[in-house]
Structures are given as C-alpha cells and as structure tokens.
C-alpha cells in the first residue's frame, strides 16, 4: 500500500471521527482502530480482481456513511470523558494556561477534601484556633507547590516539543517510559533541572514554614538536613508524575496535529 492510499483511508476515518466531541485520547483510540479496520478491508478488496480506485470505493461503501458513524461514535462516549477532556485541555490551548488550569483544579479539589475532613473530624468536638491555625497556614503553600509542579510540566512540555521522536507512548509501562525518556538529552535535562527546582521549592517552603518555631542553631540545621531525603523523594515523585503526564500530552498533541492536518471536505462526506 502506498502513502497516497493510506492518506485516502485516513481521510475516510477522519470524516467520521473529527466531528465527534470527545477527548483527544479517545479520538486517538478511535482513529487508530478504525484505520486498522479500513486498511484491512482495503487489503481484502485490493486482493480481488479490480483496480485500485474501485477497491478504495468499495472500502468506503463497506465502512458506511461517515455522518452516521459520527453519530454512533458520539453516542458511545461515556459521561466520564468530560473529566478527561478537562485534564487534556483543548488542542490549541497554550501550555502554561493548561498547567494553571490543572493547578487550580487540584488546589480547589484539595480544599474541598480538607474542608470535608475538618467538618467530619470536628463533628463531636469543635476545632480550637490553636489547632486550626497551623492547618490553615499550611494551606497557603498549596497553590505555590501546585504552581511549581504545573510550571515544571509546562517547561518540560516546551522542551519536548523540539524532540523529533519521543521514545514513549501511552501504552508503554511506567518504568520503560521513564528509562527510555532518560536516554533523550533534552528530557534528561528537563528531569534534572525540574527535579532540582522542585526540591528547592519544597525545601524553601519547609524552612519558611518552620522559621518562626525553630530558633537558629545546630538543632535547626539538623532538622533541615533531616528532611532532605523526604523532600528529595517528594521532588522525584513530582518529576515522575509530571513526566508521565507531559509525555502523554505531547504524544496526544502530535497525533492530533497529524490528523488535523488532513484536508477533509465536510460537504463531500467520504472520499470516493
């Protein structure tokens, strides 16, 4: 099968999938599976004694009306896909805006959970100011931490945009994704610098939060040093979590851009 035939088959699939309102990852699944199907059908048709164009036409006929398939695909989208769409963002959305949107969502979700816990735990006995103050002061750091993670992810994604071929795909295992990502210099740089920035941010928050309660002295220094392993662990978790998200996001956007570049004529329907 030549490149032109494959493009024709992709256009046939894209006629049905592009109008569907669904997350990028769901549309990726649809496109790949439907493309595999029409390629298989075309191979069956091309094996019969007929010319290439007739095989393409029969493939399109067997596939059915793209508009009908669009409607049926739309009907198969579960309600939970709305959440996936929220996290993925719109295809043309600036990366920083997407990172901020997720950071705000996480902060808002965290606040709701905390409020629930506080209400449930304080049901029998009301919270005292002495108990509430440290919790509320810690809350002030959440936006900072989430914004730090979001900024790191934005920066990672910006770096990865320049990499021609990413070694990972959403179907790879976590360890394999990370180890193969490490092999790419731009990604390695982003992981190291992102991890260091995250570590410094977490350490600054810890030192800042304990400053009024810890007098300057050897005990304060040992307390700060004692928290280094825990903060390093948290920073590495932020890097790994962020990287997994960013890798998938970059691959999704590339896939989307590749298919969005196909010229389809909505008036015409499927290619003849």
């Amino acid at each position, binding site marked *: 099968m030549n490149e032109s035939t*494959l493009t024709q088959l992709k256009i046939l699939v894209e006629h049905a999938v592009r109008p569907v309102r669904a997350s990028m990852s769901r549309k990726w699944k649809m496109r790949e*599976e*439907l*493309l595999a*199907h029409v390629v298989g059908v075309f191979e069956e048709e091309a094996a019969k004694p007929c010319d290439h164009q007739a095989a393409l036409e029969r493939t399109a006929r*067997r*596939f059915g009306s793209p508009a009908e*398939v669009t409607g049926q*695909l739309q009907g198969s989208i579960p309600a939970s896909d709305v959440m996936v769409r929220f996290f993925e963002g719109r295809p043309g959305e600036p990366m920083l805006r997407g990172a901020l949107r997720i950071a705000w969502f996480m902060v808002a979700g965290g606040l709701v959970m905390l409020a629930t816990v506080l209400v449930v735990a304080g049901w029998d006995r009301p919270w005292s100011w002495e108990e509430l103050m440290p919790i509320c002061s810690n809350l002030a750091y959440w936006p900072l931490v989430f914004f730090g993670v979001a900024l790191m992810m934005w920066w990672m994604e910006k770096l990865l945009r320049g990499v021609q071929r990413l070694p990972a795909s959403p179907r790879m295992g976590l360890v394999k994704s990370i180890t193969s990502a490490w092999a790419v210099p731009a990604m390695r740089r982003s992981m190291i610098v992102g991890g260091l920035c995250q570590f410094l941010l977490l350490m600054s928050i810890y030192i800042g939060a304990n400053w009024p309660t810890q007098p300057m002295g050897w005990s304060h220094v040992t307390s700060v040093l004692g928290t280094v392993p825990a903060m390093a662990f948290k920073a590495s978790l932020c890097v790994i979590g962020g990287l997994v998200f960013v890798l998938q996001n970059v691959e999704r956007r590339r896939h989307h851009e590749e298919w969005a570049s196909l010229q389809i004529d909505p008036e015409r329907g499927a290619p003849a």
Partner: protein
Amino acid sequence: MGAIQGDKLRGHLEAMVLSTLERGEAHGLEILHRLEEAGCGLLRLKEGSLYPALYRLEAAGAVKAVWEAEPHGRRGARRRIYRLTPKGQRQLEAGRVEWQHFVRVLGGILGAPA
C-alpha cells in the same frame, strides 16, 4: 431471500457481537467475518457501526479490549482484540431469552409462529 440490512439489525447488534465473541477473542474485522459467516452471507452491516457498538459494550463491562502487540504488516495502526467478560456472557444469555420472547410474540401476531 434478500440481504438483511443495517436498519433491521438495530437493537440486536450488541447481542450478535457478544455471540461471536463466545467463540473466542477477536478484533473488529474478525468479528464482522464471523457475523457474515453465521449469517450465511445475508447480513449486510455498515462496518463503521460495529465500533460504536464495541465501545458501548466495553463501557458496560461486557467486553474487554487490549491492543495487539504489533500491526502485523499493516501500516500505521494497530487493532484491538476483544474478549467476552463474565458480565458479557450474562448479557448474552439475557439477550437470547429476550430474542426468543420477541420472536414468539411477533410470530403470534404475524401468524408465523417460530
């Protein structure tokens, strides 16, 4: 007897798909081949309609799907292999009972009992 077109299959496609998967796991095109074979070539299904039905079944937990490891010579795309779950098996049995009831009722009305 003429071919059975897509419109007449509405409402029965999911049960038909489940029954093909009872014979073992399969990808979309293989499911269609099994349907055609079981329908003695008289079943004319718009093939694009199969996948929304498979997605609905997957969302309902009646089938499970995994991506095949390699595209097996096909360019650019991989297939998903579907298999029946215990929930799907129960749904299929319920579908068969419902179909028998449907045929009985309509057979009585049309004066052509099954």
